[in-house]
């Protein structure tokens, strides 16, 4: 601001708002920017605290359980800096890290990041639609659309140039997700069908189509073992390179970098393109956007399709990164508690921001891996209960985000006028 303006302001300060701002507005202005992390952090801490109470009810020590979960996530690997000398495991030279790359912690971390990868992508899917004022509950279905096409193409075309094959799987998987969500977008844009309803229905369609395709006698079922409801494995050329750990031990593929790159893409599209500008305008106030000459219907469709593209990519990355095949069971289990729904939690907790979705995804990825049966010592906490603990914490986080604890706090202060 120029001196001239600030001098004027010194004489005539802006009039105070009548009464005080609405709590929601107040909350936003107070917790905007980096400070926006405060409320989600408090939310998370509270959720973990209440999760600890549940552990206490089972007669176990919550602190010991959380310590074990922490160790299981592999995140302790970062803390071990300098404790290990770098060495070359199994003769493959991955010398980028000064840390011990072959420790148990390293393997745990690889698993955590493998789980985090699709959560970031499905989280971005939910976040993008949210920015346009839509609630995409169909991340799971779009994820399956990506999965199905990635498996199909990955297990076809043997001998194709490897980089081309994997790119084809990723690209078609992405488009499949975009098309699947785009259906809901078109329905919303043309006849006003609510996206929550249509995406849920599309979820079920994707689940049952997948069940049929990979079920016994299905067209994409394993060609060698006719009794097992599972797909063929994708060919090696369709697999993403594993850059850390062993392929046989489910090492970490470069999918994590694809997810991180998509975080950046998301930020650019939302904040630095006219498309993102329109999407946000429609999301905040469709009537004002329409008045500004923005086609609301077009943006509903585009935002939904882009949202679905993220989720479809998540499915394709999972297939080409470590799963390599899909079973009927995976689809039916995923239908109610799959990665698409965890992405929903990540977007909510991360408040649809780039950094927020990234960190929230890591939190949920770590939690899932840290409480998985493989990682947790049964004498500390029963792994089957631990899985539930994850779900409890996840649910509490969503509940508290919905409650908007920060808003409640501001409201209480406002009432007292402190």
């Amino acid at each position, binding site marked *: *601001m*120029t001196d*001239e*303006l600030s001098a004027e*302001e010194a004489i*005539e300060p*802006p*009039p*105070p*708002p*009548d*009464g*005080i*701002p*609405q709590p929601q*507005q*107040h909350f*936003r*202005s107070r917790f*905007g920017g980096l400070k926006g992390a405060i409320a989600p952090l408090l939310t998370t801490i509270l959720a973990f605290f209440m999760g600890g109470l549940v552990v206490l009810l089972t007669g176990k020590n919550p602190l010991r359980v959380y310590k074990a979960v922490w160790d299981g996530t592999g995140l302790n690997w970062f803390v071990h800096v300098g404790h290990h000398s770098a060495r070359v495991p199994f003769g493959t030279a991955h010398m980028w890290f000064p840390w011990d790359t072959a420790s148990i912690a390293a393997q745990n971390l690889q698993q955590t990041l493998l789980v985090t990868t699709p959560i970031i992508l499905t989280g971005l899917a939910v976040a993008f639609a949210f920015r346009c004022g839509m609630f995409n509950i169909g991340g799971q279905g779009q994820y399956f659309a990506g999965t199905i096409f990635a498996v199909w193409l990955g297990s076809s075309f043997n001998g194709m140039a490897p980089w081309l094959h994997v790119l084809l799987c990723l690209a078609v998987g992405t488009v499949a997700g975009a098309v699947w969500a785009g259906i809901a977008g078109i329905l919303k844009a043309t006849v006003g069908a609510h996206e929550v309803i249509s995406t849920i229905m599309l979820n079920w369609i994707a689940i049952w189509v997948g069940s049929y395709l990979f079920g016994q006698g299905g067209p994409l079922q394993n060609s060698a073992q006719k009794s097992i409801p599972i797909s063929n494995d994708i060919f090696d050329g369709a697999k993403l390179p594993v850059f850390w750990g062993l392929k046989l031990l489910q090492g970490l593929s470069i999918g994590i970098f694809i997810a991180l790159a998509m975080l950046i893409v998301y930020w650019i599209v939302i*904040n*630095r*393109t*006219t*498309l*993102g*500008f329109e999407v*946000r*305008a429609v999301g*905040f*106030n469709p*009537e*004002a*956007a*329409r*008045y*500004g*000459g*923005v*086609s609301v219907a077009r943006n509903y469709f585009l935002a939904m399709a882009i949202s679905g593209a993220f989720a479809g990519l998540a499915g394709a990355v999972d297939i080409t990164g470590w799963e390599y095949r899909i079973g009927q069971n995976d689809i039916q289990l995923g239908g109610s508690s799959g990665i698409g729904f965890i992405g929903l939690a990540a977007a909510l907790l991360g408040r649809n921001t780039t950094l927020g979705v990234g960190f929230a995804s890591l939190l949920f990825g770590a939690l899932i891996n840290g409480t998985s049966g493989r990682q947790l010592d049964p004498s500390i906490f029963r792994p089957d209960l631990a899985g539930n603990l994850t779900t409890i914490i996840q649910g509490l986080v969503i509940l508290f985000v919905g409650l908007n604890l920060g808003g409640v706090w501001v409201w209480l*202060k*406002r009432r*007292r*006028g402190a």
Partner: protein
Amino acid sequence: MPEGPLLELRGISKRFPGVLANDDVNFDLRPGEVHALLGENGAGKSTLMNILYGLYTPDEGQILLHGKPIDLGSTKAAIEHGIGMVHQHFMLIPVMTVAENIVLATEPRRAGVLMDYDAARRRVRELSERYGLLVDPDARIDRTSVGQQQRVEILKALYRGAEILILDEPTAVLTPQEAKELFEIIRSLTGQGKSIIFISHKLNEVLEVADRVTTLRRGVVVDTIDAEGATEEGLARMMVGREVLLRVDKKPSQPEGALLQVEHLSVVDDRGLETVRDVSFDVRAGEILGLAGVDANGQSELIDAIAGLRHVSAGRIVVDGRDMTNADAKETLDAGIGHIPEDRHRRGLVLPFSLTENLALHAYRHEPNSRRGLLNPRAMTARARKLLREFDVRGGAPATPAFALSGGNQQKVVLAREIDGDPKVLIAAQPTRGLDVGAIEFVHRRLVEQRDAGRAVFLVSLELEEILSLSDRILVIYEGRIVGEFPPTATEEELGLAMTGGSQGKAA
């Protein structure tokens, strides 16, 4: 009246984070008087009244009723002390009847559990006859007019035993006729011993209805004076803190060719009813054409049709010689139509957006604000900084979200955006709704400037005063038809009569 005050607020201070909303405010109310509380938006009127109604607790100061200190911790306590409030936005249940709304929460009962409808109806009728507040106890709220709903609110307060009535901007939603009737009601209430606090920022009303006037400015009482002998100019000076030009200063218009031509236009609203019927008019370069009318007589649909937000069912819209009938909003913008929408929160602004983004709501498509789909935040911010300075927007930097601004400054942002688009035709729909005196002066001056710059200005307003002081020609719309054209020398009575379908104007 020589008696001691009925109610006294002593040394009231109220602090909100970053704002001292009331600073050592003294205010008293004598029995049977109308005491107006005058001030710009944000002066602290509502805060003070919310304290009196038990919605906020003051940080300092005390409230005395009949000379005894009272503690108002809740609205319930306020009601028990005989204080009633009619909010600007009514708090009625649309699907219930007038009588049901009035007795709500204190229903007369039969046998302990059953509501006694007959008793409720009887009591409502008694009250309404006693104070001259005519309402039909059996009418459903959603089928009654706004003026009727306000009466119901007043009756509700009286039913709960209010001796002191706080009316918060009561005329903001009323037509001139309804406002006149409200003033009659106020006189009848004070005649029967009720005392009234009348909150407003409209000077002429305050002078008409009040016995005394207290002016607040930035949370501080400027003065309390008798309404008798006070002038609008004097009150405006107290309110704003400087001389305010109440009359619009303008030269005679020099109209040239028509920039906007509307020919035999008919438009259908969302319910499928024809609300604009065979309307024809021209707006010429260098003139302000005013459209007067009571709310909901087709104005909104007419504006939407011109702005490309609604399809027309018949007729033509021509902008500077180009046929723009049924063009979409973007084409209309490109053809040179600027539009200050009647509801700046719903349409004019994206409230969570920064001022930069709001100012770029049309211009983001064009260089230098964007290139090949990529935004240029630096150019957008530079543009915003320039416009905020030119239009004297206070209380916000380019990155400030729009909701953080006061209403007047928000409207300046809308104005800046529309005028910066260099429109040929500027539609101004209720451009000063809810603004205070200082901001109204600013908006009016800018509109006249646009006229003098050779744009065609189409002013649609429910405020007759605004229409009369700004327009070079005046059209009156009634039930979707243009029922008359008047010169700016017409009287409010002439226009008022035409607005209610009473008479035809000269040569429509």
